[in-house]
């Protein structure tokens, strides 16, 4: 690369800074507003920096919704769903990568097609099926339909295909069962990809809204945090509730955001490999 003139460099730096500020602005506004008093949040023109960091709203969130319980529900949903996705994806990914069987490519194609299906297309019968299983209004109803995931199978197949066959055959010669081969030989060899999938699944199921809303309607004890947030908005409608809503949003955003910031290498790599190899 030839050295760029100073003016070009200065322009590039200002462009990057401006875009970063624009992109981060809603987050900054969210956090700042959560510390405002109700009166400050209603002023025109808007107050940017609150006079004092009021923690009132964070206390109020717990009065309006059971914030602790909601966060726990979110954690339960995201953790159990992720565990299921890991087990089913590693096993199926292994089979698609290393077994030869009739109809393999057709079956794989069918799963990939399922990956692109927007959830609304199957929502109505799925809702009915889960009610007939007696799981409406329960966390089990939220979790059960999501225990396998086409993206996970796809990702695992891509990475497990790169595990040397010799390694697998050596374990078989030692008398290991196929399940043992998968979980104690193959899985450790693709650990970074498994970590990526775990993080991706956890964040996705922490954030997802449509399905829990449909299954849990009214069962507010079992609401994950994303559903409870809606109840904050209907509390004291209007500008009055802004700090309350912002405090709730901050609580819901923090867990996935913190995970992302610390583990972003995994996230981004898995996204990219899905796109590049796809």
């Amino acid at each position, binding site marked *: *690369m030839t050295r760029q003139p100073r003016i*070009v460099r200065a322009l*590039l*730096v200002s462009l*990057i*800074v401006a*875009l*970063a500020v624009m*992109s981060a602005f*809603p*987050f900054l*506004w969210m956090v700042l507003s959560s510390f405002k008093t109700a009166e400050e*949040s209603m*002023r*025109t023109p*808007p107050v940017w920096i609150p006079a004092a960091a009021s923690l009132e709203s964070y206390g109020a969130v717990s009065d309006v919704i059971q914030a602790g319980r909601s966060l726990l529900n979110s954690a339960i949903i995201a953790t159990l769903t992720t565990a*299921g996705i890991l087990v089913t994806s590693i096993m*199926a990914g292994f*089979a*698609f990568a290393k077994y030869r069987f009739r109809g393999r490519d057709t*079956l794989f194609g*069918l*799963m990939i097609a*399922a990956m*692109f*299906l*927007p959830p*609304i*297309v*199957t*929502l*109505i*019968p799925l*809702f*009915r*099926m889960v009610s007939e299983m007696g799981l409406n209004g329960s966390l089990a109803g939220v979790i*059960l339909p999501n*225990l396998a995931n*086409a993206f996970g199978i796809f990702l695992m197949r891509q990475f497990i295909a790169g595990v040397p066959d010799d390694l697998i055959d050596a374990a078989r010669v030692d008398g290991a069962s*196929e399940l043992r081969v998968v979980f104690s030989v193959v899985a450790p060899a693709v650990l970074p990809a498994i970590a990526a999938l775990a993080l991706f699944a956890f964040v996705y199921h922490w954030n997802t*809204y*449509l399905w829990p809303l*449909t299954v849990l309607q009214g069962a507010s004890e079992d609401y994950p945090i*994303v559903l409870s*947030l*809606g109840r904050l908005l209907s509390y004291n409608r209007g*500008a009055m509730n802004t700090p309350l*809503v*912002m405090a*709730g*949003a901050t609580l*819901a955003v923090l867990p*996935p955001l913190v995970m*992302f*910031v610390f583990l972003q290498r995994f996230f*981004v790599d898995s996204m*990219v490999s899905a*796109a*590049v190899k*796809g």
Partner: protein
Amino acid sequence: MIGPAALFIGVFVLIPMALTIWLSFQDWSTQTPFGTARFVGLRNYHDIFSQLSVGRDFKAALRNTALYTALSVALLLPLSVLLGLLVHQRTVPGGQVLRTILFASYMVPMIAVALVWSKLFAPTEGPLNQILGWAGIGPQPWLSSPTTALYALVLLNVWQQIGYFTVLAVAGLTQIPAPLYEAARIDGAGPVQAFFGVTLPLLRRTLLFSTVISIINAVQVFEPVALITQGGPAGSTNVLTYHIRRVGIERSDGGLGSAMAVTLMLALIVAVTAIFALYRRGDRA
């Protein structure tokens, strides 16, 4: 090995898919078992495209979704390439930090994003109109007017998703061999010519993937509509995911809702097939 995954995907994706198609030809209340469904032929399809209010609402939702999707794609793709170039370049530092900040918004719950933006859009006490005021632009009604609400939702969508598509663009850019730029430079191409002659053509596969994903993501818009606008004002943000759920779950008209869901799926298949066909034709040219 495939058993568990095939069982779950079969039971919770493929069977519901088949049921949706079957139910679209039935008169059926979502409150009752599947056995109560009564075959009505094409009547549901006839109704959702009729001049009845059912038909008018559905067609409006289809139009709103198409507009929302088209605008989202039209903004996301060029922006993702531009931002991808900024993240990818090594002339000045800051690219990686920009990527982290852009991608962070893709990782947080859409519902929280919708709440925050509803406050940013607030006409008097929100910061967006204040910032526009500094630039000498008058206040906008954003979510409170039927003429602007859908565009405000597009803006929110672009903000949330741009990080993901930027990362895809960067992945595409890293795959372009450096000697090609070298050759272009020797041939006397400036940066602009190199962009149109080398970068853009070699990003075509990435852009194809990004187009398909951004369409599929855009038709799923739900949270800001369900929570903030409820389809309004005056039906201007009534989009398909919201409308299908309202008809099929809240009003329990499972047959009509399923016919709408099948129509959405067919529309997606047509759109994606057309995009692939365009891509292939471009390949031959």
